């Protein structure tokens, strides 16, 4: 499929910071594409370059085969939903939505019909004559969407559009955004620091850090096969272990030496050679935690661990277990509730088992990885609130 929206080697500096560092990216027509990264990673800069508010130092932006790098914002067929919505406070909802068509001197009858159609789309016909300060956050959000869509943009840019909403409303707006995307069928470029939003909405995600794109892929691909330790730590929870490749077993597997551990068998699709220093990343839900020694085949790793903390979370329980210097997060689903089952408690010694394919080896290659080694793993998003107050590190 021909690429619809292309960033070609785009760079942008602000003083000494590199907001975009030789970014190349191509987005397909009709795709829901997310730029995901921590604040300051350059995702908003890319968006502003596309909208025309910033000029790239290098590189160009192509939209539908046309180089739009030099066009002023009002000549670009892209529209933005701003983080604070940026509704015009002196205009009513109706006038806000009509703004784009009024500027383009749209005939009156067509304009009225279009505005009414948009009001129906966002289900706010009865609020049309209120001013922005009289409607709620979610309604403002919908007006911002309608105001952008009425111009029939080729790409809709969304700059952290849900950041200002509370959790419940955010969940509802997620569904609405998804429905609107299905209905209008245009390309969405969505900028967020919230992995949950990006995962649930996107066809593809680009994870960014320090002005560079770390990985591009479908949500499952990024979660299950992170290509760098940054991606592994940023998307979801994970545990990192510092190891060294001791020897290669067959082609696909290797043995890892980790301080204080028996040798660990690990999947080695990247064919990392003997003697290399690596991080081993294992997601908390990939572990099996049990009181009795499980019977498993040779592809599993199995070791003793000590339970330090148990956090019951309804859908699952989170265990903090210790092996030597490592504090490891483990999730366990509650598949059944059995009254007579004796749950694993504090200070018990347990077995920790995982399949060799569930561990990912990531090369230690950049200084930015330093901050990832501190356990427990870091994560951005609301879900890590639950153990912040329990864990002093």
């Amino acid at each position, binding site marked *: 499929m021909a690429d619809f929206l292309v960033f070609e080697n785009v760079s942008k500096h602000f003083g000494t910071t590199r907001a975009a560092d030789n970014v190349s990216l191509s987005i397909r027509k009709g795709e829901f594409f997310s730029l995901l990264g921590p604040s300051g990673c350059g995702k908003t800069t890319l968006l502003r370059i596309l909208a025309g508010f910033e000029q790239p130092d290098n590189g160009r932006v192509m939209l539908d085969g046309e180089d739009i790098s030099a066009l002023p*914002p009002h000549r670009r067929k892209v529209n933005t939903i*701003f983080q604070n919505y940026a509704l015009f406070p002196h205009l009513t909802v109706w006038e806000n939505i009509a*703004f784009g068509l009024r500027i383009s001197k749209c005939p009156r009858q067509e304009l009225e019909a279009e505005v009414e159609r948009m009001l129906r789309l966002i289900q706010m016909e009865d609020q049309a004559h209120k001013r922005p300060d009289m409607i709620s956050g979610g309604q403002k959000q919908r007006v911002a969407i309608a105001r952008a869509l009425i111009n029939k943009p080729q790409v809709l840019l969304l700059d952290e559009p849900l950041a200002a909403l509370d959790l419940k409303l955010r969940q509802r707006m997620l569904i609405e955004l998804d429905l609107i995307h299905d209905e209008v069928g245009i390309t969405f470029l969505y900028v967020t620091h919230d992995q949950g939003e990006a995962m649930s909405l996107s066809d593809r995600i680009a994870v960014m850090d320090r002005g560079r794109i770390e990985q591009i892929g479908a949500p499952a691909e990024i979660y299950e096969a992170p290509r760098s330790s940054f991606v592994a730590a940023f998307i979801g929870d994970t545990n990192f272990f510092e190891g060294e490749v001791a020897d290669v077993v067959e082609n696909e597997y290797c043995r890892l030496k980790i301080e204080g551990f028996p040798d660990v068998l690990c999947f080695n699709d990247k064919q990392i050679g003997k003697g290399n220093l690596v991080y081993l990343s294992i997601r908390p839900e990939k572990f099996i935690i049990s009181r009795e020694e499980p019977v498993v085949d040779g592809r599993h790793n199995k070791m003793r661990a000590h339970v330090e903390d148990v956090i019951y979370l309804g859908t699952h329980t989170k265990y903090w277990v210790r092996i030597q210097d490592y504090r490891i997060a483990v999730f366990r689903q509650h598949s059944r509730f059995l009254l007579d089952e004796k749950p694993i408690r504090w200070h018990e010694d347990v077995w920790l088992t995982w399949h060799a394919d569930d561990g990912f080896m990531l090369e230690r290659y950049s200084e930015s990885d330093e901050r990832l080694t501190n356990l427990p793993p870091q994560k951005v998003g609301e879900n890590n609130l639950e153990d912040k107050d329990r864990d002093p590190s």
Partner: protein
Amino acid sequence: MKIASRKKVNEWLVTAPSLFWLVFLFLVPTLIVFAIAFKPSDLYGGIGAGWTLETLRSLGNPNYPIIIWRTLYLSILTTAACIVLATPVGYCLARTGQRWRQVLLLLVIVPFWTSFLIRIFAWKTLLHPEGMIKKSLVFLHLISPEASLLYNAWAVWLVMVYTFLPFAILPIYAAAEKFDFRLLEAAQDLGARRWQSLLYIFLPGIRRGLWTAILVVLIPALGSYVIPDIVGGPNGEMLGNKIAQRVFVDRNLPHASGLSALLILAVLLPLLAVLVLQNKKGRAAPLIEEDA
């Protein structure tokens, strides 16, 4: 009940000082001025007994329409020029970095440290036939050597614009400083050119600042007395000069009151009109107060 009545009392207590100020130092004197206009004058410059329409009749003096007309157009043109100049200044001030902004604001305020009179005399020197401006303009062949820059309506206009400009800049800057400039980006994103975003989004966004600026320039401009007195000459006289003449030269207080009442009405009526119009539009917006 009790709480409600206490609330009432509190309201009155809080309002009392400003109410007192308004009634005794504004409303009553204004009414006295209106009243004196219907009194006869006596020979010694005082106010005679009884009531008369003499003053009202004498306002028909054929000199007055010219002066009233001049007062009106000079004030309105002064206000217009101040707004036109102050709006871009306010916009730039609000968009300048914090440190430079302090310096620029200081530059706006610095003239106040010199006496108003001295600054007007400075203008007189500048515009004088032997002054710098006149000489340079003649040198550049922009005006003929016979033309006079001083003692006409345009000299008054120029000096009034100079004098009142800071009063227009400050409220406009205050409003622009609160303006969310991201709205301009939003407008451009929706297809507006730069000037369209300024016209349709920025100006309505600072409208309260604009109204305040219009009022604080227009009202004192209508009552100007010193500026036309020093740089105006007989062709630049304004109503304020006539009022002063009636008091100091003719010693005719009722006549001065009549002219003053006329001026007060000229200020109040447009103000009321604006208030009524704004209320009709359903936004009972106070004119001076900045919105939250």
